């Protein structure tokens, strides 16, 4: 099981290194950021929307950080 997970991780790493993935990531997060303004009625869950946006933003930063490390490692290798 561990081996399979590692293999999947390696495949994901290779995908993350592709420029095309960055386009997808950008579009995906654009949709995520806009989603509350399409789906949730105004002022229905104000605190939840704030938490949602900041959490989504933070997750985007974490992914960018990981890609940055990965690219650095890849370039080093």
């Amino acid at each position, binding site marked *: 099981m561990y081996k399979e997970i590692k293999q999947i991780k390696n495949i994901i790493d290779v995908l993350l290194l592709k420029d095309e993935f960055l386009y997808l*990531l950008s579009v995906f997060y654009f949709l995520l950021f806009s989603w509350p303004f*399409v789906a949730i009625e105004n002022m229905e869950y104000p605190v939840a*929307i*704030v938490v949602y946006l900041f959490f989504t933003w933070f997750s985007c930063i974490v992914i*960018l950080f990981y890609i940055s490390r990965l690219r650095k490692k890849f370039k080093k290798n």
Partner: protein
Amino acid sequence: MINVQTVIFSVLLYIGGMFLIAFIVDKKVAENKKSKLVNNPLIYSLSLAVYCTSWTFYGSVGKASSSGLLFLTIYLGPTLMVTLWWVFAKKLIRVKEKYHVTSIVDYISGRYDKSERIAFIGAVVVLLSTIPYIALQLKALVSTFIIITGFEDKPNLSEVKFLVAWGTVALMGLFTILFGIRKLDPTERHPGMIFVLAIECVFKLFVFLCVGIFVCFWLNDGFFEVLRKIPEVVPNEYSFMGHQDGGLITWISYTILSASAIIFLPRQFHVAIIENYQENHVSTASWALPSYLFLINLFVIPISIVGISLGLSSTDQYVLTIPYLHGVEFLSLLTFLGGFAAASGMIMISTMTVATIITNHIYLPLVTRATDQRLFTRFILPVRWICAILTISASCIYMQVVGEKYALVSMGMISFTGALQFMPLILGSIFWKKGNKLGAMFGLLSGSLIWFYTLYFPTFIKSGYIQSDILEEGLFGITLLRPESLLGLSGIDPLSHAVFWSMFFNIGAYVTISSLFKRSQSEEQIVNEYLNLFEEREDFQAILPETAETNILLIGKKKIIEEILIRYYSELEIESECTKILDEAKVLNREMVNILELSELRAVFENKLAGLLGAAVAHKVVGASGLLNVTERNNLYKYYSDTLAEYSISPSELHTRVNFYREKEKLVSNQYQELEGLVDLRTNELIERNIQLEKSIKKINTMREQLIEQEKQASLGNLVAGVAHEIKNPLNFINNGSKAILFKIDELSDIFLKGDFDQIDRLEIVDSFEDIAISSELISRHGERASNIISHMLLLSREKGQTKEYFNLKELIYKNYQLQLTTFKDKHSTHINEIIRMDEIGDMFGCPSNLGRAIYAIFENSFYEFSKCYEIDKEFIGEIEISLSISKGNIKLVISDNGRGIPENMLERVWEPFFTTKPSSEGTGLGLSITYESIRIHNGTVKVSSSQEKGTEFTIVFNNCDIKQNDKVAS
């Protein structure tokens, strides 16, 4: 209220401190060009946070108070854009490095055929879009100064505002000139200024977090407690807290604008591209900049909610007024300085960029038309200073004219929309080869005009300086020309409206005209050069053909270069600059050059000038200089056409081949990347497997050690149990026997004490003596047995301690065999059939006494079996076979008999100490254990095979024996 003198002193102290830092950093970097003080990704990322101006510092809270979460788009957009920086920011950096790009306008002009017109339009757009932005910084500074010094309620407020505004202009002008406009070449980096920007960014973040913590944890019970107040303090229809009419369009417009602003705002372009030291720094900035933006926005909503709940009026100043109203003067002063840091960083970098752009793309193209250019061109640096002062002054006027009516954010968004006009041209330059000068010019012009008309112009109308009917009725009374409902488009906010129409015309004109008209030859060449850079193609090394004649005098060309340089540099600098250019073109100290070398010299010179004047002016100046005159140009063309003719290739064929090889190169590059990815994947897998294997081996070793330990413990347990059992039996007999003797002695004592023995007494005495004799015999026999066991055990324990020597194994075997045979024949009158086949193997190195006991034990077992068989069957004839041989240093000894054999289930246990099938009086069970141990320490193995009623065979093999030839073998 804080004393005016204290505030001014703090500001001056802050500026002085920053200037000192900048001075020290500049000095350090000048001393050591490879210094990592500024050339590091962290400083680069922090300097990019100049994006967060006083608009962020004050305006975000203001925007959050009026429009909920809409302010977040200003920071979410950059996060999305930074994601793509890996793709295109690196390409822009490469172009900057190669062509000495000085600004965003210079980049566009350079890419689109070094067009002066595009540069001019771009310069005007930059100037117009920067003015509101600087104005909003000034507005923030003035208004916060008024609040913190308590001038709000004073009757002379307008005079104070005027004084503060123009005082700030003077201070900022001086600040900008000292920090950023000290050098002539704008492509030279400004390490001191960038370092100061980074420090300012850290400072404003720190202050903002302090205010946020003060508001959430000092005035309230925590972050989420404040958030829970949202429904209480704002009305239910509070905007941008979820879905509402038109909200999504505004949200998307803001996101697009801010995404473009993070790189296409002139100052952002300058910091991100022009001041960049290494492409790789972009990688760190991709996460560090969004992290900064995340942190600086964390407390915006809580501050806004607390400000609203306190009933404060000016939403833009909540960050300052909340600590100020609570009497925390130190925090208020710190906040003011944080806002000052945010504003001063932006003003400094923006003014510097605008001054360079105006000088290079408006002033210089105009003066190059003058007959005596030198009169104007010698003073480029002072002209830049004047431009800087004028830009800040214009911003101050704009603030006084428009600023009072507009919120900070609205003013900022005007600038963002202006910067957006550069986006199609720059992205087109990277991703669309067909984009050309004409398309770019019309695209930029139309987009900028629409931006000005729909967004910029209405600010003056709303401020009351222009007739207000235009907004309602349209220009010349034509309703389709209403600035905020152009061509009848209504129902969306003015900003989204301006974004839509400006982009519609900009992109539309750029794409349509570029598709309709072909690029010029020179533009074609530029596009190819840019593509080479984008795709990281390596420059081909120029191979000088023998056919190119070296017939051009360099001294004349050097004079032309000097004549041009003298317009911009002092006479002292000319010689060194000229030497640098000749050296870079690899023609230094040459007298004559060929046409190709001259062409290269021209390119290097133009590149050098581009760093000073911008690509367009440099191209024009060098073109007009006669560095490559008409004859030489014709010779260059002739040379190229001759080269083509020599290879018998038509131009179209050449294009086809070049394209083919480029495609091929691209394909190979892609495959290489794929392979690298796969190799990386496999390497990772192998590393993982290796780690797993190492873990398994470690686990196995641990288990083996545990097993050995368990075996040892078990063996020890068995040994102890065996010893206990074997010794206990004789001891029991001895104990019982001695007790019985004592009992009998007591009985006898009683009889003897009586004195008078009758017949019965006599019989009892006799019986008692007989019992004592029997008991004594038992004691003696079992004592002997115990002694025997102990002796065997001592032998077993001494096996390893015996000294080793060369001995004759064959003789040893035979001697032990004879010993047993003699003993057997003494007891039994029967015959033994013996088959003895023993080779002469020489002398073996080992312990003869040990091995003798081992062999003796085997023979003892065989003859014991013969005895038992004989007792059962008097006709039994024992058969014993002994064979000894040697092969490749390995000695093999086989002893077999035809006894009763060993039951199969007992075969495995014959080597165990104290295991025996004999009655306890006849064997201790240690014989074969001693055999096993003795053979083992002689590097040998022993195996037993047996079948019941047929016999037993012992096979002993001594491996790699040390054998010495003796006389018998030799004979």
